[in-house]
């Protein structure tokens, strides 16, 4: 699909006729390549040449999922062959897909506890991962490229000892870090990161919650507006505190730290909704009606809840100074005032009416929502 593509067409040089010929020639070459690959796979020609041809075709069209499937069929075949035939006395036949091995490699493999066939598979996976890097950088939003890497990694996990497999996953963690540095909102990248971290944790029997939490801090400091990083942080915190065996006091201190962080971010840019969603998350951890938020403060009483609501309403009100036209402030005030009231607190109706009035003025697009809110809050003029 042409998402966000202000395309420029035409080859530039030559007349219309010659560029038409060029296009025809390119179509012909593409169709021939496609037919060649397809025929070879049909004939179960799992040779190095076929493998290289899939690379050429995919570099022209990485969205061609059937060709990725062909590539995996081929690799799967080679892996199976390695296990059934490979031994030091039985070298691979000429023309078949294999890596250029030498004695030093083999010795290193033996030290790592890999059999010769595992060693060969490990090299094949490693070569495929690195040869596909340029394509991924060129098409960072192509599902199939990410998907193929995942598949290679699950094969590494199945066929290799944990210590070797984990090295592959660690390599992917470094890669996804680079990809997210290039586009910090790429949801393929964030999804892949979660998969990679889970695999490292499982294979290494370790927790990466602390390290990943630090990573979100780094990402947020680079770009405050990165909601993907804030979201990931919100997912890590409840687990992190459990793993720290944090008592109530430590949890309270942690929550205060997060409020400080988000408040100073909001002072930097109160018009950024990513930040307000994170503020909402922190408040939601104190709200028993939103179980998806997880828990930070525990145990937590209603008087704790009221204390935080009061603190945050005061703090958000102060943000109005110089940002009187910021609709998110009024939204937050009304939402937290409502919760305060639900807990039995008193709120000045005139304040709420004033906030709602400002909100309607500043945000006419969502007038229907404010009308419903007015009803829910009982602020209608009777």
């Amino acid at each position: 699909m042409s998402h966000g593509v202000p395309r420029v067409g035409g080859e530039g040089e030559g007349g219309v006729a010659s560029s038409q010929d060029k296009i025809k020639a390119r179509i012909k070459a593409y169709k021939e390549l496609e037919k060649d690959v397809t025929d070879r796979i049909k004939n179960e020609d799992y040779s190095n040449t076929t493998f290289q041809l899939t690379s050429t075709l995919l570099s022209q069209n990485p969205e061609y999922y059937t060709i990725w499937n062909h590539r995996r069929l081929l690799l799967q075949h080679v892996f199976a062959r390695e296990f059934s035939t490979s031994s030091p006395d039985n070298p691979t036949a000429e023309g078949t897909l294999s890596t250029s091995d030498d004695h030093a490699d083999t010795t290193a493999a033996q030290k790592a506890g890999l059999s010769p066939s595992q060693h060969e598979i490990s090299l094949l996976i490693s070569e495929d991962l690195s040869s596909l890097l340029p394509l991924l950088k060129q098409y960072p939003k192509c599902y199939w490229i990410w998907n193929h890497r995942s598949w290679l990694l699950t094969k590494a996990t199945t066929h290799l000892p944990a210590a070797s497999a984990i090295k592959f996953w660690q390599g992917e963690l470094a890669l996804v870090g680079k990809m997210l540095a290039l586009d910090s909102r790429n949801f393929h990248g964030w999804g892949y990161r979660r998969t990679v971290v889970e695999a490292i944790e499982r294979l290494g029997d370790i927790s990466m919650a602390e390290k990943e939490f630090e990573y979100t801090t780094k990402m947020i400091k680079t770009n405050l507006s990165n909601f993907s990083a804030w979201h990931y942080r919100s997912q890590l915190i409840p687990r992190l505190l459990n793993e720290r065996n944090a008592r109530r006091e430590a949890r309270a201190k942690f929550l205060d730290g997060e409020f400080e962080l988000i408040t100073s971010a909001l002072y930097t840019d109160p018009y950024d909704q990513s930040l307000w969603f994170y503020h909402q998350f922190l408040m939601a951890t104190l709200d028993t009606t939103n179980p998806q938020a997880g828990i930070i403060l525990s145990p937590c009483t209603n008087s704790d809840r009221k204390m935080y609501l009061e603190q945050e309403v005061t703090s958000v009100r102060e943000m109005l100074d110089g940002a009187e036209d910021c609709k998110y402030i009024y939204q937050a005030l009304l939402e937290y005032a409502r919760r305060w009231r639900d807990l039995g607190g008193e709120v000045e109706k005139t304040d709420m009416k004033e906030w709602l009035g400002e909100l309607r003025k500043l945000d006419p697009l969502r007038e229907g929502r404010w009308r419903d809110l007015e009803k829910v809050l009982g602020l209608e003029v009777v």
Partner: protein
Amino acid sequence: MSLVAGPGRGGTGSGQLPDELGLVVQKHVAYIQSLDTRRDELESHLTEHLRISGIYWGLTALHLLGQPAALPPEEVIEFVLSCLHDNGGFGAAPGHDAHMLYTVSAVQILAMVDDFVELEMRVPNGKMKIARYIADLQQPNGTFAGDEWGETDTRFLYGALNALSLLNLLPPQRKDEPPLINVTAATDHVKACQNFDGGFGVAPGAESHAGQIFTCLGALSITGELDSFLGEEGKDRLGAWLSERQLDDSGGFNGRPMKLVDVCYAWWVGSSLAMIGKMDWIDKKKLTEFILRCQDPEEGGIADRPGDMVDVFHTHFAIAGLSLIGYPGVMLVDPA
């Protein structure tokens, strides 16, 4: 149906929309019809891997525009059946491997064109064969894979439920038979994808995304658990997140906080709002104007944003968005 983009571009986006500019229905119809005649362009060949979905988008747009016969039904059925594999799955085009995404498109087309009559005539027990392909892709945790290679995504889960429901083969639709899939496990998986902001992601733990919200709400709606799971508070929270997708300057929707607008979110966000009864939480007039500005008023077709190349994907989702809003002359659509 070729997926080639252009040749037209959406309007320039500068300045106000002339009052008289409405949806250029005939031009969009002609644009969709013209897509099949563009085999002399390289991009047409580079997009074969989406072809059957392209037909679904084109055909649905034509249905919504009240001209379902503008693509000859016999040719459409012929093409769709030529994509069917022995295992009951469909590829995107002849020679392309079977995949959930294209199987769902095929089922949607066959349901729309002749309610599976031709399929059943040519393929013995065809509907059940397709259903079994889909059901076999369900994973132990309830979610669905896209194909035998194992990628999972809430898009596939929704697609599976949607297609099985069109085939009339969901467990509740055939109570006396052994169930083809585990509906409870599928629904539980969807629930596990929900976040504190009320939205849903592509997998448990993933950030909320408007496209994924559509698939998850659609799935819950098909299994009849939308209202009971979300409750009023859940709907308010999700409605708030969704309504914040509308941007002040353009009136269009984005898919996540602080991202660019794109006309296809008129459908993903719009239908999600409709499913939770919050369509009034956005400005429909501004959204309509944005969608109309994405049209190429001369050659037809709709782009993701004003000024970009038009294509059939965005043309379809833009028209479906207008349908949700009740735009005159566009048929009403079921949001799920």
